[in-house]
């Protein structure tokens, strides 16, 4: 028979979220400052840090600058557009993306500098490095624009599978190269200056009969370490490659939508079932597995020294021990989901909730 829940729309999410596990805090999470930036609806906005400034944006079009130490709002601007991707900052320019496929660039004082049209929805924060702005379209395309004028320098494009997972993946711009994951499970390395394809590697192979089963998309931004670059595929695998030539170092059969973070020789990943895993960067062996948070729709983890930080769908910030994955501390925020990954700044880290609060947290 039809369960009653089935009749009235929202039935339970796939896995039932586990309740908050009991915890013996071995550390203390404290809020340094808290600010408000506005709701980000079903999107993922990430704050950007440049010098002593923190820039944040929200879906209703506001872009704001806060003082990194005190959290005081320096200026607040209404872009007048429906924002869908942001914020990227650096080299004197602050960048956000709109629903109609425009990249808006402001200067650190909040004055608009230029607007560029790329013709496809932008769901991730534009990156800027070495005078080039790299921005991902929701259709997977990678655009490179001149940081000072917004003129298009090059664009990299692949054919799309019939059905892909909705992804907020951006591109990792590191040491003159751009690493981007694509629907269909491919990872591509491009030269930042002219978009030349360095190499292309397969993170996961689509398999199954229907379009749905054949989804194996790299739905999160890759992370680059010294000589490895690692990426995670939804309904696919977690894998690391040699950064120079793309040869696969190792691959493990974990499916992850939220993504991974590499910190100090260990790779932290949040799987689809919201387990957190610590894997050894060199050969991918499992160091530890934290499965008391399954079903809580965890955000992408952040390696933070001896700890690992991850947010969940009820706005809790969880602190895990980097060595054994044990739960070290927990802090509620405003009850709305933390979808985007925490951002390291100075000796703390920033968290933005979909409900619109922006917090700087520190561990004591």
């Amino acid at each position: 028979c039809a369960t009653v829940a089935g009749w009235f729309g929202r039935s339970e999410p796939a896995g039932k979220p586990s309740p908050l596990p009991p915890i013996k805090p071995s550390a203390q999470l404290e809020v340094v400052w808290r600010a408000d930036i506005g709701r980000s609806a079903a999107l993922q906005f990430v704050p950007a840090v440049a010098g002593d400034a923190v820039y944040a944006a929200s879906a209703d079009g506001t872009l704001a600058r806060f003082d990194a130490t005190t959290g005081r709002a320096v200026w607040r601007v209404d872009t007048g557009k429906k924002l869908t991707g942001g914020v990227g900052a650096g080299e004197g320019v602050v960048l956000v993306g709109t629903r109609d496929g425009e990249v808006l660039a402001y200067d650190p004082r909040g004055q608009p500098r230029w607007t560029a049209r790329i013709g496809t929805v932008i769901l991730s924060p534009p990156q800027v490095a070495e005078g080039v702005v790299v921005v991902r379209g929701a259709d997977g395309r990678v655009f490179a624009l001149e940081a000072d004028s917004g003129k298009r320098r090059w664009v990299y494009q692949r054919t799309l599978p019939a059905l892909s997972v909705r992804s907020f993946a951006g591109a990792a711009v590191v040491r003159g190269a751009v690493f981007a994951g694509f629907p269909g499970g491919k990872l591509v390395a491009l030269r930042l200056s002219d978009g030349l394809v360095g190499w292309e590697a397969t993170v996961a192979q689509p398999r199954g009969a229907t379009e749905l089963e054949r989804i194996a998309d790299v739905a999160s931004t890759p992370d680059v370490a010294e000589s490895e670059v690692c990426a995670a595929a939804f309904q696919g695998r977690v894998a690391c490659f040699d950064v120079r030539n793309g040869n696969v170092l190792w691959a493990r059969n974990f499916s992850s939508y939220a993504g991974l973070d590499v910190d100090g020789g260990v790779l932290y990943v949040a799987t689809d079932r919201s387990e957190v895993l610590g894997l050894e960067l060199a050969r991918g062996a499992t160091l530890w597995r934290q499965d008391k948070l399954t079903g809580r729709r965890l955000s992408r983890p952040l390696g933070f020294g001896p700890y690992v930080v991850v947010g969940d769908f009820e706005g809790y910030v969880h602190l895990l021990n980097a060595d054994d994955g044990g739960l070290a501390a927990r802090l509620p925020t405003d009850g709305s989901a933390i979808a985007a990954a925490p951002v390291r700044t100075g000796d703390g880290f920033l968290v933005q909730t979909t409900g619109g609060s922006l917090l700087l947290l520190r561990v004591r």
Partner: protein
Amino acid sequence: FEPFVVRDIRVEGIQRIEAGTVFNYLPLKVGDTVTEEKASAAIKALYGTGFFKDVRLERDGDVLVVFVEERPAISQIDFIGVREFDVEQLRAALKQVGLAQARIFDRALLERAEQELKRQYLNRGKYGVQLNTTVTPLDRNRVNITFTVDEGEVAKIRQINIVGNAAFPESQLLGLFQLTTPGWLTWYTKNDQYSKQKLSADLETLRSFYLDRGYLEFSIDSTQVSITPDKRDIYITITVTEGPRFTVSDVKLEGDLRVPEEELRKLIQLKPGEVFSRAKVTESTKLISDRLGDEGYAFANVNAVPKVDKEKKEVAFTFFVDPGRRVYVRRVNIQGNTRTRDEVIRRELRQLEGAWYSARKIEESKKRLDRLGYFKEVNVETPAVPGTTDQVDVNFTVVEQPTGALLLGAGFSSSEGLVLSGSISQNNFLGTGNALSLQVNSGKVNTVYALSFTQPYWTVDGVSRGIDIYKRDVDSTSLDVGSYKTATLGINFRLGVPITADDTILFGLGAENTEVSTFVNSPQRFIDFVNTFGRSNSNFPFTVAWQRDTRDSAFFPRSGRLQRANAEISIPAGDLKYYKLSYQQQWFTPLTRTWTLLLRGEAGYGDGYNGKPLPFYKNFFAGGISTVRGYRTGSLGPRDVNDEALGGNTLVVGSVEAFFPFPGFRDDKTARMSVFLDAGAVYGDKSKAGSEGFRFSTGVSVSWLSPVGPLRLSFGFPLNAKDTDKKEPFQFQLGRTF
């Protein structure tokens, strides 16, 4: 395995199949020499029957032993957790594939059925479905198959986003789409569920929208469909490049036209200077090829070749006409008529055998068959005759439906005594196309014996003749209302002469004798009538009428018009001296693919001549299901002292009605619903009060082709009824709809 001569054949392992059957399919017979490839051919043949899971041939001396292992038979197929589809529908579909009770179980078929079911679920937007089938073996080499399905949540479209549109706002463009985000009606239309077909249809609509407004180089760069990891929300992003707006610079016609050029040039919708529109181009090519189609060039092809001038943003079109060969019709076949005679159908067809093919004539033929009212469905195809390049056959397939209404009833009422009533009418009597109707009512107050017979095709060209004979007696003495007695006996001859393809002139000449006897308490109008016309009076009504019918179907027209102007004059030789003029028309036009609008109008005026009044029972009446719904039949207009409707000599009726498919029966051809606004008035004897002046009503009506005959139910709600009016919200009618 060296060959040997088979002395005998033995079959091992059969349970359900008999040895005889195996021998029948085995290509080896006693006495053959068995070689390597003969043996493998035998094994292949036995596998081919589909009965066996495993086949082995062995040698026992010179006896050939055939080991077979029968595939199990399916004993039961169950479905658990299936909500989206009706289980019986699934069983029937599986039966088609060969998976059904008592059939032989074949795993390959099961896999195919599983894939097919999963694909069906994806089409319905159920992306989260989990499906697995279990096959449980039973005794006596049988198996049970169980399909367990967890349908999961339906993926709903959370957002559709068009990027790159400048000329038209996104909201307007999304308005064209079938797919939408969840709204108040999407629980029924399910348009908030993603389906590939609907999306490609919507993209096509978007493309035509732009191409019909001058954007020749409009292109859809990419459409991206993405689903959230919990498989519940779908986001669609469509990236477009509009390109500039083009105007038409020049239009030319070239090729072997076979029809005068000016005539074809008139058919081209595109005028130089206008904004380019693809719809106009396709419309023009269609009109030209149809025109050629009427000349027998069935395979004519016309294509418009554009010459684009990018700088001036102009485009010139040349219509190249290639008529191809003139095509002739070899045979016209009619199928599906188990009751209607072939000639009754063939005489309606305008396309003859041995003549050149005419698309218009075939279209006209289909319309005329639909208008007969004998068929639920009429389809036509024109397959080419094999072996020729210039001959086609025309195959009409009809689905018959009952054309009669049979009402038999026996009742007993205090006033009428035992009443045997019955009416039988058959529009397609014995499939001969003639219409016969008998009506019998043997009540004491109302006795009616009436017969009417019409022969629509007295001559091959459709001159029709008909005869009506009737005896109607009314004796209201037993009722407590004003009592009177009338006895009418009449006969009427009818003749119909078609003067064009759609117009017919109808003549009627009748003779009618009425006896009226009144009493002291008879209603005044009866007494006046007897004083002017005497107790017994004769009447020779002569009617002439013009009728034009271009409707595309008898029961559920979607287009066309039916008009009828009628004049009835009593010939001076009779006692009665009156004339009645009336005009009725129904005008149907399609509003959308499924909605149809009807504008219905009726007007009538009657009067006596040579100083005689119009007899009261010849008055016009209004009210009731075929004129103004919501009011009792004939109740409009003035009423006498006993509150009986008198009717009047002037009638005006109008109605606006919108038909739409019966909800739930989207493509059912037998039922239709409608909302209507009726209005009508009857003007007569000014001195009497009653319901004079216009009466309005609105409401809902359902028409259904029931097995007993066309049925109409209507719920009419009077808008400006006075308390003296006789309201009757629910009304129904069985029989002819017009």
